[in-house]
């Protein structure tokens, strides 16, 4: 069983060898060779950034790359030494090695083991989404800072100055010392370094597919060897080579058990633990963002949790093979994909090529001049500091500037491992500041029914004030909001409507604020109405008791039709004000009805027969989420407007705008009298009836919906319309388009007139 599952898993990861040989091997081999040629000098250079022997960079390019490719999710991600993690490793090991008197490599191996364990754990705990909480501004600030640090760190080697690293603990202090030692510049070293830097930058810009680093290092090595600048005879122009500091043998003696596991130092473990977490997080962010970027081009669907596990296990395994913490490399991964790699075998083969290089040509790397390496790293720093993107982010917003500058400053001045967390903290603070206040505007309804949005407090005095609240509505954002809202109140104000459609993250503080605001308004004899209430907010209002306090008649629920509930709230507000204004001189219902019925127009003969021509577009549409009470309001206003016809029907639509049934006036009347006592009551005063009628009115409108309406398409002819009319028992026939959206209704009377027009006269028929 387990073997079978394992086999299935392996099959899902790799294609069968014969298939791979036939279809993908050529492309993968070609891409792997390109990646190896590009990666070998990079690996050694990055090891130099980390302050570790260059050969460890090659080891990391071999072991970590293979393990990550085997277990990860991406087909194109190349794992190995990376500039940012290497800079972090240097930042950590430089201090701890001096403090504890332990080799930096041993500390790097311990970091690799711990950070790998944390990464794998995060993957197993399915925390793949954690990367999204680190903003682009943080990454940009951090990467820029790391680039500057790399440049400062390599300045002495670039200028051919005597090493100053042992004399100070911070790179900025080293920079200061380098400035004071400018008199000791080695012009030959500077020339070699500058030549390499310029060559790498030029090749990258003009011919990005060429292995610029390899070309530059080879040429520099050749020049130094030919001119004998590596010999003592060169005197003050002498240039040191890699082999003098750390000899690279042509062997693969990789296995090395981390000494700190044999002789644990708990104090060191404690100091390394937090740093390892930083390395783990940064490594994952880097790998995940690169893999995501590549997947966007290749169309591959990624499993970030699996990628986390892959990266973690690669680092854990690497710790036993002299590998420092690895992460995804954008340069090599992008080249891998652009070179046509089809499968993850390309990454594995690139590691194999690197191993073969180490075995056969490794000793040659001993002749690489150190300033050439410094030039290569200066070019790396040059590309890390992306001035265009940096300035773009800088201009985006003040909050981006704070996060960007804060993270950059922390990277340069504090330890790198803390810089990311400080950046995240700044991002959170910026987010809290942005969301700490809801966006307030005022709405005014135009004559055509549409709404105009104007700045808060700038609306003309009116009896009805409509305020639009948007954004977050949690404890911080509602502080003093009630008093701020009061600013839009004038002596004329009688009703204030809060539109709360786009509010998020509301809680008990928000409910308390609204309650207090309601009390403040009551003292001024102003009624508070709320509209655009969505389901979540409705629940919170119910639980907090606010719904009861405001009164159901003052709450209007959101609909899929924009501004539906706002229109209802405005109707209600105007109605209340009209009643107050009219006082005892209200028109009788009879007057209202007679007036409304008098407006109904005479049916006209329509020459065309199809439903699209016969239909009336004067009908009422409503969402499904409303209460009966809201439909009562709408239907009442519709009837009184005189546009509703004799038997008004409200058609309901679902969230896609499709017809979802209808509510007829009859159903409403029936429901109003649905109280158990109603039908049996001999007498009923207004108060009793009101209570009965309110019995069901806060229930969903869906309970009254009739679904059996027969509909026609706009192309339907007269017979089809008549048939639908008869099936609907004479009620109007909805006209739906092919998407089941309502276009109009065919009324019985119009159809009758058309029918009589079509039929011959009595005399003719006889």
């Amino acid at each position: 069983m387990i073997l079978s599952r394992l086999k299935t898993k392996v099959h899902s990861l790799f294609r069968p060898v014969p298939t791979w040989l036939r279809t993908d091997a050529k492309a993968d081999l070609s891409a792997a060779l390109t990646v190896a040629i590009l990666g070998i000098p990079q690996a050694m250079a990055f090891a130099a950034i980390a302050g570790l022997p260059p050969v460890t960079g090659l080891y990391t390019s071999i072991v970590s790359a293979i393990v990550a490719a085997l277990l990860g999710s991406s087909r194109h991600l190349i794992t190995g030494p990376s500039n940012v993690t290497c800079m972090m490793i240097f930042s950590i090991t430089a201090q701890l090695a001096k403090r504890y008197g332990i080799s930096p490599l041993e500390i790097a191996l311990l970091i690799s083991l711990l950070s790998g364990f944390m990464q794998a754990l995060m993957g197993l705990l399915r925390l793949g989404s954690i990367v999204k909480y680190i903003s682009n501004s943080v990454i940009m600030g951090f990467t820029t800072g790391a680039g500057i640090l790399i440049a400062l760190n390599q300045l002495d080697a670039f200028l051919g100055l005597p090493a100053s690293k042992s004399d100070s603990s911070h790179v900025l202090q080293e920079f200061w010392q380098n400035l004071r030692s400018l008199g000791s510049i080695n012009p030959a070293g500077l020339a070699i370094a500058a030549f390499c830097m310029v060559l790498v930058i030029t090749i990258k810009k003009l011919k990005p597919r060429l292995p610029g680093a390899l070309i530059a290092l080879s040429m520099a090595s050749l020049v130094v060897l030919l001119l004998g600048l590596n010999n003592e005879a060169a005197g003050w122009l002498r240039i040191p080579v890699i082999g003098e500091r750390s000899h690279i043998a042509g062997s693969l003696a990789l296995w090395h058990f981390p000494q700190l596991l044999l002789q644990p130092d708990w104090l060191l473990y404690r100091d390394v633990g937090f740093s390892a977490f930083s390395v783990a997080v940064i490594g994952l962010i880097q790998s995940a963002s690169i893999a995501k970027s590549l997947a966007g081009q290749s169309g591959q669907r990624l499993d970030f949790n699996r990628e986390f596990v892959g990266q973690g296990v690669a680092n854990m395994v690497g710790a036993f093979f002299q590998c420092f913490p690895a992460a995804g490399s954008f340069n090599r991964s992008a080249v891998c994909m652009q070179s046509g790699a089809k499968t993850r075998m390309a990454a594995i083969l690139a590691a194999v090529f690197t191993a073969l290089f180490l075995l056969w040509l490794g000793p040659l790397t001993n002749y690489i001049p150190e300033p050439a390496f410094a030039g290569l790293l200066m070019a790396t720093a040059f590309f890390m500091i992306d001035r265009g993107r940096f300035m773009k982010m800088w201009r985006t917003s003040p909050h981006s500037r704070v996060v960007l500058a804060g993270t950059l400053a922390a990277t340069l001045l504090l330890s790198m491992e803390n810089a990311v967390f400080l950046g995240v903290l700044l991002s959170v603070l910026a987010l809290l500041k942005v969301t700490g206040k809801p966006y307030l505007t005022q709405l005014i309804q135009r004559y055509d029914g549409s709404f105009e949005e104007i700045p808060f407090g700038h609306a003309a005095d009116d009896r009805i004030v409509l305020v639009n609240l948007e954004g977050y509505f949690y404890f911080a954002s509602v502080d003093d909001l009630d008093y701020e809202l009061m600013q839009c109140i004038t002596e004329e104000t009688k009703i204030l409507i809060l539109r709360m459609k786009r509010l998020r993250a509301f809680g008990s503080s928000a409910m308390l604020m609204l309650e207090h605001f309601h009390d403040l308004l009551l003292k001024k004899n102003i009624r508070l109405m709320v509209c655009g209430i969505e389901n979540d907010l409705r629940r919170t209002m119910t639980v907090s008791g606010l719904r009861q306090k405001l009164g159901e008649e003052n709450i209007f629920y959101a609909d899929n039709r924009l501004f539906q509930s706002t229109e209802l709230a405005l109707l209600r507000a105007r109605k209340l004000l009209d009643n107050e204004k009219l006082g005892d001189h209200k028109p009788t219902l009879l007057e209202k009805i007679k007036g409304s019925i008098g407006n109904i127009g005479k049916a006209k003969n329509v020459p065309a027969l199809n439903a699209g021509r016969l239909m009336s577009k004067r009908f009422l549409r409503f969402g499904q989420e409303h209460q009966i009470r809201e439909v009562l309001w709408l239907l009442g206003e519709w009837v009184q407007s005189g546009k509703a016809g004799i038997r008004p029907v409200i058609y309901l639509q679902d969230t896609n705008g499709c017809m979802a049934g209808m509510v007829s006036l009859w159903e409403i009347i029936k429901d109003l009298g649905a109280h158990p006592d109603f039908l049996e009551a001999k007498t009923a005063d207004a108060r009793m009836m009101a209570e009965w009628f309110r019995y069901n009115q806060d229930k969903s409108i869906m309970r009254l919906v009739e679904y059996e309406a027969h509909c026609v398409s706009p192309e339907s002819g007269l017979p089809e319309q008549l048939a639908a009319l008869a099936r609907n028992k004479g009620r109007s026939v909805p006209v739906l388009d092919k998407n089941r959206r309502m276009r109009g209704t065919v009324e019985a009377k119009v159809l009758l007139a058309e029918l009589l027009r079509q039929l011959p006269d009595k005399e003719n028929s006889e």
Partner: protein
Amino acid sequence: MKKPESHVDHLSASTICIDRFTILQATSTLREALAEMTVLENTASLLVMQDREILGVLSVEAAIAYLCAGRLSELDAGILPAALHQRLEERLSDIPLGKAVCIEPATGLAEMLQLAHKQVGEWLLVVDPQSRQPIGQVLYNTLFLSAAGLALDDNALIHP
């Protein structure tokens, strides 16, 4: 808030009925009834009388439903059958009419609503208590507005 006296308490059939309805004799044909309907403005029903007795109510909807009854498949096929012509000449006394639910002018809103609740799809016809002659009709729109107004009237509930 001051609670005003509710107007609904005083609502009766005589105050909310309308007197605009058309009376046709039972000897009239369906064609005549339909022609009458197409020119009527303010009501969609016809009152059918026979010897000063109310025979029933014919609505546009009911008329069309009757006209098309049993012919739906033919109508679907796009044919206006000749049988329709025959039906148009039928006398109103021979075709099914809706029941006219009669109420007196003094009938209160609650009772009217109860009647409407029991009598699905019929009009409430207001008749003179003595002569039993029609004097008006109460539309469901009217009842609805009264009831809806009452249901939504804050002052009718227990508000301070």
